[in-house]
């Protein structure tokens, strides 16, 4: 089972903030494809400028392998303070 978290405007686009996906995809690219097929608008938003991905709470660049219990978060440009 892969846990997927959306932050900021991404959760507004998707209509959810957190989801479990089972069976778990093997790679980040496979997860993106799965989300895109189900909801094209979210798929596009995830590819948008400044969106970062974190796997098990570490930022990743490009594609990576996902362990079966991975936590994947998609992060829009950060804006605190």
């Amino acid at each position, binding site marked *: 089972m892969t846990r997927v978290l959306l*932050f900021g405007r991404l959760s507004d686009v998707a209509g959810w903030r957190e989801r479990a996906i089972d069976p778990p995809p093997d790679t980040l690219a496979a997860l993106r494809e799965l989300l895109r097929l189900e909801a094209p608008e979210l798929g596009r938003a995830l590819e948008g400028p400044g969106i970062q991905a*974190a796997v098990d*709470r570490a930022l990743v660049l490009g594609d990576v392998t996902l362990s079966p219990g991975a936590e994947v978060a998609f992060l829009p440009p950060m804006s*605190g303070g």
Partner: protein
Amino acid sequence: MIELVEHPFDAGHALNAFLARRSETGAVASFVGLARSEGGWTIALELEAYAEFTHAGIAAFAAAATERFKLQDIHIIHRLGAIPPGDAIVLVLTAATHRREALDGCDFLVDHLKSRAALWKKDHGRAGARWIEPTGRDLADAARWEAAS
């Protein structure tokens, strides 16, 4: 110390606690960011975080600031959830032997919190809600610490 809190916090109390028992500190700088009303248009700001990930990210640049500006101590409080106009969003406190280090360390931390901490800010206004993204100035302010290092 880094705190992410879901409730209003007392900045003056935090400042006094930070000032206590500092016989070798010459300078304490602080910054408070507040939610603005924008002439009544903003009803509340909403701040979202990614819990431990956010905390760890802030701790990483706090450690960088400590090293770079030779800070004796840092205290950061960032509020999460719905924040009405006039309330404090964030407090940054730095302690150093001399004023330049305390002021520059505070400035560095504020710039990094603005565009490099895992926080997302939504403006709930009379005209609807919108997510706020960092401005060009926010990004340039954070980048100036790289150019200068």
